[in-house]
């Protein structure tokens, strides 16, 4: 499974995902939208991410989602397909993308939960289709991890992690 095995994301795939996020952003009148994988790694974003630290955001949002999955199971639900967090000025809707990724939409009073939900429902199958294709494709050849790269990385580890 792609989300669990070693996997790669190609520039073309990312461009397609970015295009989908960009149209979602305007249709749903979002502040920003972020895409991350189920293990908490940030993939890409659109909109005003400003001060938001995407690495931290991705790690916490994946944990949030994973915890709710467990809560769902306690209630006898297979999972909660989306999560909503309401704030005073901004709110957030998180949704599962085919069990492989998480889409987060952050919006303020320029939009409404109803609109965001509606647009998200239309978007999710398209994003899931990109992920499914990525999963089916063999990993791109000519990765960076040849022996020379590994030797250089080991040197960098020694240099950086010297306490």
């Amino acid at each position, binding site marked *: 499974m792609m989300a669990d095995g070693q*996997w790669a*994301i190609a*520039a073309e795939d990312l461009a397609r995902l970015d295009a989908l996020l960009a149209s979602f952003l305007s249709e749903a009148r979002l502040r920003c939208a972020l895409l991350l994988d189920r293990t908490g790694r940030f993939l890409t974003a659109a909109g005003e991410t400003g001060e938001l630290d995407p690495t931290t955001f991705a*790690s916490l949002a994946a944990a949030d989602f994973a915890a709710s999955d467990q809560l769902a199971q306690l209630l006898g639900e297979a999972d909660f397909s989306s999560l909503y967090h309401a704030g005073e000025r901004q709110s957030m809707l998180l949704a599962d993308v085919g069990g492989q990724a998480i889409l987060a939409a952050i919006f303020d009073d320029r939009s409404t939960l109803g609109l965001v939900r509606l647009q998200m429902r239309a978007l999710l199958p398209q994003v899931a289709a990109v992920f499914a294709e990525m999963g089916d494709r063999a990993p791109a050849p000519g990765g960076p991890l040849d*022996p020379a790269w590994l030797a250089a990385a080991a040197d960098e580890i020694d240099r950086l*992690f010297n306490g």
Partner: protein
Amino acid sequence: MSMINYASREINCKLVYYGPGLGGKTTNLEYIYERVNPETRGKLISLATEQERTLFFDFLPVDLGEIRGFKTRFHLYTVPGQVYYNASRRLILKGVDGIVFVADSQPERMDANIASMHNLYENLAEYGYDPRTLPIVLQYNKRDLPNALPIAELREQINPDHLPEFEATAVEGEGVFDTLKAVSKLVLKSLG
């Protein structure tokens, strides 16, 4: 597990610090956070209870510099050690690329070390991860304590498979970076 992003030219690896409660996992991350070049690390996030015990995880991202056009990023996580938090431990193992098992050298914690090691193998099996191919290193922590067990005894009890092992006094930082270096090199090697 690891993810290579050819668009942003980034390699992401997940390292998890595992082990019994109060063994020193959070202390390892705090020391790394303090000592690593601030430009290479992100925020240290701790989801902890009021008693400062890890509730869900600690998280620290650390970047290696750019190597031949690719940036490598290690995501360091700790798990909560308390027995009753197994659901969170399992969640954090999802997509793991390498593990540091932090053992507590005190004799009264030996049972907890063993139980936690069993729990790790069980949780890995649940995901279908093979502990024989997944990089795992062992850290014998709290070597400063006068009652610390001899290494030979610890090894016999919790390292029958001869995993790479390190002595540490995480509160003073001793052994912390040696352990991190070892696991991160093993992880990159496992990708190649």
